[in-house]
C-alpha cells in the first residue's frame, strides 16, 4: 500500500492568491494512499524542504507529490530533498499549480478544482512510480564554440584558460565578427579593433584552442558530455601550412571589384582575399563565385605569383569529426538590410546607408580611411540625419522588439561626425532614447549638450531626392507633431538587429528552441539566461537577442563558467528516463516478438537486436534491447510497439493511463 505525502505550496501569494491551498491539501488528505498532506507558504525554502524530509522519515512515505511551480523549475530541488531523506528521488513528482493554474486562471472554485485535479493526477501516477537509479556517463572535456565574434572569442578564451580544450569554428575567413567592423565603441570611444585584435591573436595562439575558420557545423548528435559534431571546413583553396600571408596573391589578383563584405559593400576586394588587414588567421581564401579561374577555367595569377606554391585550386571541403562535451553558441546577429524600407529610398539613393556602413566610413581602416565621405560622390556631408528605430519597435514591420544597441550607437555616430566634420550639422530622429547602462545616459547627454547634435523626437515618413539633396520628411512630436523637413546630404538608418539567416536551421541541427524572431531561446528568461533547454548547450551574445559588447562578453564568460562547471566532473549523472524492453521468465523471455519496428522508429539508433540463446548456444528468440547510453527517452518506440513490450521509465503505460483515469474520475 502506498504512503504518499502531498505538499501544497502557496509560493508566497503566487498560488494562494487564486487557489485555496488549504482546501487542496485537505481534499488530497482524504484520498486512498495519501497518509500526509499539508500546505505551506514556501515549499522550496529550507523549512519547506525540512517539512518534506521530516514527513518522509516520520511517516515512512513511499511517494511524494509537491504541488507548486513547474517541474522545469524545481523538480531537481525537491527530488534532491527526497533523496536526502532516504527516499528514491524518482518517487517524487510535481503538480504544476503555478504556471499551469494559479497564474493563468482567475480566483474561484473552478481554479481550486483544477488544482485538486492536477494534484490527483500526480498522486495516482506516483503510486506506479518505480525506484530508479541515475545513469552515469563520462564527459568529454572539450568544448565547441560556434561563432568567432567577441562573444565566441571571450567564451573560448575563458574555457581554454580553465585548462580545457576548445574548438572554435567561424563561418567567415577571419574571426572578429561585427566588433571588428566597428569604428569606436560607446561610451568610452575606444577604438574597437585596438581592444579586439589582441584577443583575436590570443585565440589563435592559445595552446588549448583549435581554430577552424571558414568552417560551419554540419551536424550534431549525442547528448550532454558526449556530443559528436561534424564540422565542414569549406575549401579555402590554399594550403594553410604553406601560406605565409605575404599578400602577393591579393595584390596581383585581377578581379578587384567585388563589394567587400567587411566594408559592408562600401569598399572593394579581390577574388582571393583577406577580409581585413588584422584578420586572424591572416591568410587569404579564394572566393570561388567570383574567381575567374572557377568561372572561365583560366587565370591562375595567384598560383603564378605565390612564392610558396600554396594555392590549391582542386581543394575540396573537408569534414572533420570531433567529440565534444559542451557547446557554446555565439553566432551573433545581423542588421536588417534597408531594402526593407522602400519609403526611405535605400538602393535608390546611394547616400542612404546603414549604421554598420557608417561604422566603416568612420573607421580608420575603412574605405575612406576614417573620413566621413558620402558614397555617391565622396563629398563630406554638411548635414547628416540619423534615423533611430528603422524597423525596430514597429509591429507593422514584424519587429516589435527594441534592438537595444541603436540609441547608443546613433549617439556615438553623431558624436564621431561632429568630431570629424567641424561645422557639420547632425540630426537624430528618435522615438525614445534608451540609454540604460553604465555611463550610457551621460554619453547621450554629451552628444546633445557638448557636441550639439540635434535630437528630434518623431518619426520619418519618407526620404526623397530634390536638387541633389535628400529631403527627410518627418514630424516633431514635442512640437505638437509639427512637420519637419531637413535637406540632408546623407542619411543613416539604424536598422533593426535581427537573427542571422540560417539561425533556424542551426537551431534545428542543435535541437534548441528559438523565439518567433529566430533568436535562440534561453532556458529561463531570468535565471538561466545562458542555458538552452538542451543540456550541455549554452548561449552567448547576440544570437539570443540584440546585445551590446559588454553584455555579450558577460554572457560569454557566464557560458564559459557553465562549461567549466560541467567539465569539473569526470562523470555526469543522467536521468534514468529511458526505454526498456521487458524481460520475463522462460519460456517466454520477453513479450517482444522481434518485429523491430522500434529500431526504425528510434532517432538515436539506440535499439539493438539481442539474441536469447539456450545452454547449447542455439538462438531461441530475437528481441529488442535498448542501449541505455544512447537512449534519450523520447518514448517514440513505446508508442510504436505492437505488443507493448517496450516501456519508458517515468512515463510508463501504467503511469500514463492512470493519469488519464485519475483526471476524469473523482474519488
Amino acid at each position, binding site marked *: 500500500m*502506498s504512503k504518499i505525502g502531498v505538499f501544497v505550496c502557496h509560493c508566497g501569494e503566487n498560488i494562494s492568491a487564486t487557489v485555496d491551498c488549504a482546501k487542496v491539501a485537505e481534499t488530497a488528505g482524504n484520498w*486512498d494512499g495519501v497518509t500526509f498532506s499539508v500546505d505551506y507558504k514556501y515549499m522550496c525554502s529550507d523549512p519547506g524542504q525540512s517539512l518534506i524530509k521530516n514527513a518522509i522519515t516520520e511517516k515512512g512515505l513511499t511517494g511524494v507529490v509537491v504541488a507548486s511551480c*513547474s*517541474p*522545469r523549475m524545481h523538480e531537481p530541488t525537491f527530488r534532491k530533498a527526497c533523496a536526502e531523506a532516504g527516499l528514491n528521488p524518482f518517487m517524487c513528482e510535481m503538480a*504544476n499549480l*503555478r*504556471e*499551469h*493554474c494559479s*497564474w*493563468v*486562471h*482567475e480566483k474561484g472554485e*473552478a481554479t481550486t478544482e*483544477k488544482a485538486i*485535479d*492536477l494534484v490527483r*493526477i500526480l498522486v*495516482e501516477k506516483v*503510486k*506506479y512510480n518505480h525506484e530508479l537509479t541515475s545513469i552515469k556517463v563520462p564527459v568529454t572535456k572539450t568544448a565547441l564554440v560556434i561563432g568567432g565574434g567577441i562573444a565566441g572569442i571571450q567564451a573560448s578564451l575563458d574555457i581554454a584558460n580553465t585548462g580545457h580544450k576548445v574548438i572554435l569554428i567561424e563561418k567567415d575567413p577571419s574571426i572578429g565578427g561585427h566588433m571588428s567592423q566597428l569604428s569606436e565603441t560607446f561610451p568610452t570611444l575606444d577604438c574597437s579593433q585596438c581592444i579586439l585584435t589582441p584577443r583575436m591573436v590570443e585565440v589563435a595562439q592559445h595552446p588549448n584552442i583549435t581554430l577552424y575558420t571558414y568552417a560551419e557545423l554540419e551536424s550534431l548528435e549525442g547528448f550532454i558530455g558526449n556530443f559528436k559534431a561534424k564540422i565542414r571546413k569549406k575549401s579555402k583553396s590554399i594550403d594553410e601550412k604553406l601560406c605565409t600571408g605575404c599578400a602577393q596573391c591579393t595584390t596581383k589578383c585581377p578581379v578587384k571589384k567585388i563589394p567587400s563584405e567587411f566594408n559592408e559593400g562600401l569598399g572593394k576586394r579581390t577574388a582571393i582575399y583577406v577580409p581585413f588587414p588584422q584578420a586572424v588567421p591572416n591568410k587569404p581564401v579564394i572566393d570561388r563565385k567570383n574567381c575567374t579561374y572557377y568561372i572561365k577555367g583560366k587565370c591562375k595569377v595567384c598560383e603564378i605569383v605565390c612564392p610558396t606554391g600554396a594555392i590549391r585550386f582542386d581543394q575540396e571541403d573537408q569534414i572533420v569529426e570531433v567529440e565534444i562535451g559542451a557547446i557554446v553558441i555565439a553566432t551573433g546577429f545581423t542588421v536588417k538590410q534597408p531594402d526593407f524600407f522602400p519609403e526611405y529610398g535605400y538602393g535608390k539613393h546611394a547616400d542612404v546607408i546603414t549604421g554598420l556602413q557608417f561604422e566603416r566610413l568612420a573607421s580608420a581602416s575603412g574605405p575612406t580611411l576614417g573620413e566621413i565621405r558620402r558614397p555617391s560622390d565622396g563629398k563630406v556631408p554638411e548635414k547628416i540625419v540619423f534615423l533611430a528605430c528603422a524597423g525596430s519597435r514597429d509591429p507593422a514591420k514584424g519587429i516589435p522588439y527594441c534592438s537595444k544597441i541603436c540609441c547608443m550607437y546613433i549617439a556615438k555616430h553623431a558624436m564621431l561626425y561632429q568630431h570629424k566634420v567641424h561645422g557639420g550639422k547632425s540630426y537624430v530622429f528618435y522615438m525614445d532614447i534608451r540609454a540604460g547602462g553604465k555611463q550610457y545616459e551621460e554619453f547621450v547627454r554629451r552628444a546633445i549638450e557638448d557636441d550639439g547634435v540635434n535630437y528630434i523626437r518623431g518619426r520619418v515618413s519618407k526620404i526623397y531626392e530634390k536638387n541633389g539633396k535628400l529631403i527627410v520628411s518627418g514630424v516633431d512630436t514635442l512640437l505638437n507633431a509639427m512637420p519637419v523637413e531637413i535637406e540632408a546630404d546623407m542619411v543613416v538608418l539604424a536598422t533593426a538587429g535581427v537573427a542571422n539567416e540560417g539561425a533556424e536551421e542551426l*537551431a*534545428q541541427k542543435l*535541437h534548441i*528552441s*528559438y*523565439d*518567433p524572431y529566430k533568436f535562440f*531561446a534561453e532556458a529561463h*528568461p531570468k535565471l538561466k539566461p545562458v542555458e538552452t*533547454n*538542451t543540456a550541455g548547450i549554452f548561449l552567448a551574445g547576440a544570437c539570443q537577442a540584440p546585445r551590446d559588447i559588454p553584455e555579450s562578453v558577460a554572457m560569454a564568460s557566464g557560458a564559459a563558467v557553465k562549461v567549466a562547471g560541467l567539465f569539473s566532473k569526470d562523470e555526469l549523472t543522467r536521468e534514468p*528516463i529511458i526505454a526498456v524492453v521487458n524481460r520475463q521468465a522462460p519460456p517466454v523471455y520477453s513479450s517482444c516478438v522481434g518485429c523491430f519496428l522500434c529500431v526504425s*522508429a528510434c*532517432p*538515436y539508433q539506440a535499439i539493438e537486436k539481442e539474441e536469447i540463446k539456450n545452454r547449447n548456444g542455439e538462438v531461441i528468440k530475437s528481441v529488442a534491447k535498448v542501449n541505455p547510453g544512447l537512449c*534519450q*527517452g*523520447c*518514448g*517514440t518506440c*513505446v*508508442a*510504436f510497439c505492437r505488443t507493448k513490450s517496450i516501456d*519508458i521509465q*517515468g*512515463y510508463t*503505460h501504467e503511469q*500514463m*493511463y*492512470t*493519469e*488519464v*483515469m*485519475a*483526471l*476524469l*474520475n473523482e*474519488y
Partner: protein
Amino acid sequence: MAEFEPKIVAFVCNWCTYAGADLTGTSRIKYASNVRIIRFPCTGRIDYMLLLKAFDEGADGIIVSGCHPNDCHYTSGNFHARRRWIMFRSLCNFTGIDTNRIKFSWVSAAEGAKWADIVNATVKSIRELGPYTEYKKVAKYPEKEVNHG
C-alpha cells in the same frame, strides 16, 4: 442552467508545449480553466489509445500538442506523432469518433500566447459541441469496473 463546462485533456510534450504553457503562466496570460495538462517526454510517446481512454473516461475534448516540425527535441518524435495522427484520424472517421473534439497543434516554448489561444478556442468549440455522450454509443464497452490501485 449553468453553462456547460467541458472537460479537456491536453497531451503535451515536455520540451515545447509544456514549456510554452509555462511561459503562458510566466506571462500571466489568462485562459479557460477547463484544460488539464498531462506531460509526456515527447508527442512521439503518445499512444493514441490514450486518447480513446480519455474519451472513454468522460473527456469532452482533447488537445495534442508538441514541438513544431523540425524543432523536436528528439529530432523526429513529432513527425511520428503527426503521421500517427493522420492514421488515427481516418480510423476515428471510420468508426464514428468525432475528430472535431481532438485538436492537434504545435506550440513552441516561446509561444505562450498561442497556447492560451488554442485552449480558449478549443474550449469554445467543445462548448458548442456539448458533452461527448455520443462516444458511449460508438464504443460499446461492458460496464466498467473501477479499480484504481
